[in-house]
């Protein structure tokens, strides 16, 4: 495990302990830290961004209620991911039961995961907007200066650490840090107008 992962886990342990001692604000920090990751994970099961967010909210509330039982045998995020997966599977089962349009014999959540007719909840408008956003991001990356583009590609596609990128690009770690945040900023500037108009 890298020192940065240890830092992250240490931060989680610290926040979990604070919640267990009655500090509700510490749980808000855990929500902020993990909200996007949990929504991503849940969306893989639910296949609907809006419903994924409802299920993710339920996940956090369940996690809050169960935090007294969390003994730190595993990392907090693996424990949280487990709750998210179970909540998503339960949601799939209840959604299938509610649905009168699909005559699917449901044995369990895994069966639903493999039933495409129960998964795709994307509207054509949503798909179109998603494609527009993806194209904007890719265009923004293409338009980046060479060194920024290389840095963001090594980070996002190769999963390299800052030190590894510094070695690969033969520059100081501080320069990598700066190139990455400038690249992200440039993409964000191109993306923001689209998000303000769209309702993804």
């Amino acid at each position, binding site marked *: 495990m890298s020192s940065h992962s240890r830092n*992250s886990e240490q931060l989680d342990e610290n926040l979990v302990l604070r919640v267990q001692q*009655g500090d509700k604000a510490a749980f808000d920090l855990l929500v902020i830290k993990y909200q*996007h990751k949990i929504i991503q994970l849940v969306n893989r099961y639910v296949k609907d961004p809006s419903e994924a967010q409802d299920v993710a*909210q339920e996940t956090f509330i369940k996690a809050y209620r169960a935090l007294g039982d969390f003994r730190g045998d595993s990392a907090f995020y693996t424990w949280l991911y487990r709750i998210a997966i179970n909540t998503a599977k339960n949601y799939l089962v209840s959604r299938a039961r509610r649905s009168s349009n699909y005559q699917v014999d449901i044995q369990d959540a895994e069966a639903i995961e493999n039933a495409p007719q129960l998964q795709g909840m994307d509207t054509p408008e949503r798909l179109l907007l998603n494609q527009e956003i993806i194209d904007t*991001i890719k265009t923004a*990356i293409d338009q980046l200066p060479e060194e920024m583009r290389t840095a963001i590609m090594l980070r996002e596609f190769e999963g390299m650490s800052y030190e590894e990128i510094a070695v690969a690009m033969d520059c100081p770690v501080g320069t990598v840090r700066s190139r990455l945040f400038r690249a992200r900023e440039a*993409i*964000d500037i191109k993306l923001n107008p689209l998000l303000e108009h769209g309702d993804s």
Partner: protein
Amino acid sequence: MPEDLNQKMSQFLDNELDHADALLLLQKMQSQPELQDKMNRYEAVSHALKTDVFLAVRSDFSAKIHQHIRQEAFHLLPQRKSYKRTYKLMALAASVAIVTVIVDRSLEPPFNAASTLQVANTQLPEPYPLNKRINDYLQAHNNSVYTNGEADFQPLGRVTAYSDK
């Protein structure tokens, strides 16, 4: 938005921010929703590059959870269960007990019949007939006398004051 803060958000996204700075940044995001929105966009772009799916987070996502947990009834609040502490104490107590027994046995001299007899002799009280000890006890406590075939007494009979008539 200050450039330094943007850079820290980028580092946080890449898990390259140290513990103290990460905590400070999270606290800032808690009080400034626009920072949270920006972080969510950074994360959404990162995810979209790998999956071709852009997942925007509702701006009130964390606020709704915040509201919900503040309305939680007292009995639902998380309370740390002290499993580890209890197990540790039990393990410690068991270890102390085992060590005590082992040390005690290892310090005991090997069995020696002669020395045991000697100890027994020194500890035994002086000869004192059992029957006399019982009689002494009963006289002292109950004004009753138990006998064992002595004159004027029936064997093991109980003589009491009310037999005058």
